[in-house]
């Protein structure tokens, strides 16, 4: 069998990039995890192509490990998502913005349909930020 390394590297890079775009743009927690899995697929393809190029099995062995880690990641991620869904009843990742540091302002979301939620969130953030500031002022 004949294989040209460069072609497979290009496809792997494109898959990786598509996964990255999905991870950045999707707001559904589940689809973000799926996009991360797509990035792993791109990496696996690159590993196998390199192993084929060098004529040994290191690439395939590493891909088996990537597969294992992907399965672990999916299990943990799904458990976490179920837990998050249980507490907020939504899969929207922007609901969990208050995991950020309290003093850092988030960029306002430009989504008209979920306007109420984001405004509420920003209110929370501002409030905690104010609290932090007053605390610091009291200490000073």
């Amino acid at each position, binding site marked *: *069998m*004949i*294989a*040209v*390394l*460069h*072609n497979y590297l290009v496809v792997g890079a*494109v*898959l990786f*990039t*598509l996964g*990255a*775009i*999905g991870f*950045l*743009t*999707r*707001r559904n927690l*589940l*689809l973000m995890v*799926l*996009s991360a*899995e*797509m990035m792993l*697929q791109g990496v*696996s*393809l690159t590993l*196998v192509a390199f192993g084929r*190029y060098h*004529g*040994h*099995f*290191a690439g*395939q*062995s590493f891909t*088996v*490990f990537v*597969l*294992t*880690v992907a399965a*672990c*990641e*999916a*299990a*943990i991620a*799904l*458990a976490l*998502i*179920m*837990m998050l869904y*249980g*507490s*907020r*009843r*939504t*899969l929207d990742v*922007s609901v969990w913005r208050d995991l950020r540091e309290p003093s850092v302002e988030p960029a306002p979301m430009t*989504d008209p*349909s*979920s306007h109420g939620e984001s405004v509420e969130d920003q209110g929370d953030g501002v409030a905690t930020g104010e609290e932090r500031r007053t605390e610091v002022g009291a200490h000073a």
Partner: protein
Amino acid sequence: MREALAPYAPPPGSNGWVVAPLFPALVALIWLLPRGHQRPAWPAVLLALASALMGWIAWFEPSGSSLHDLLFSAFSLITIGAGVEMLRQTNPVYAALWFAVVILGTCGLFLLLAAPFLAAATIIVYAGAIIVTFLFVIMLAQQSGHASYDRQSQSPIAACLAAFVVLGTLLFCFEKTFASSRRQQELENRLESLDWAVQEIDRVETTLKSLNGTSSVESPLRDVLGRHASLLAKDADRNNALEQVQGALGEWDKAVVDARLTARLANLRKVVDDFRRQSHQEVQQGLLRRPARPGQAVTGDNYDPAEVAGLGVSLFGQYLWGVEMAGSLLMVAVIGAIAIAPQRAGTPTATRPPGARG
């Protein structure tokens, strides 16, 4: 400065135009990502097809087997098309199913890369287990109808720009490094023949010394070889060094009158030429695989790359420790997932009642 940077300059064949197909693809992807309102898809589809065609022209290297090329093109088109389709779906169930198509396309590419075990394992693990679990969770957690967060993507333009900058850089580096793999292979072969030629020259030289006991012919050759011994250390100069040594050989050829030496030099040159022609033929056939080294049974190098036995020997020989670690990781992950997952509402041991604000 210029000389110091010379090894990093792109080879003469490549230029920045390899990233040109990315621009229509970028526009098409930004157009296709969900933005909250319906848009006709056909302009983006046309743009994407055009960029796929451009990409095929710019990046594809024929392997010499038209069947392999056809299968590769089909599988990669399926994979990338399903990936784009997964990004633009507003229904997460459909997105998960398109991801299954991505997995199937990747498995086809694995088969083309002579990795049948991985193809089967990936289908079983991903399409069989992970996607089904995802679908279960989607069914459990999905609200009725399309959720607002699925209909609108988060800063699509900035994300696409950033990702495509990364992709362009990657593709440019691949073009620079691996599209010239033929040239690299040729260079390696030339270096081997050059080493052999240097040894042969040494041998001829000692013969010459023993013949007439003088070192009249020796000094110019010694100079040349000494000067190029350092050049040989640098990859970029191998070609140059080979040419200069060959030039020196030609000069030396004229200087030496002994018929035996001339015959031996002709032989040497013939061997070098044969070597180069043979390596050139190998390169032209696209045989990019290096020959397996003998006596390395534990890495699976003695096996044909398409054989599953080699993968087993490699996994349970060279990477046994890694396999053990992966197994432990799986067990820890399963325990962690069970510990994290929310308990059922009626269970008395439930520490986190559903609906509680975290």
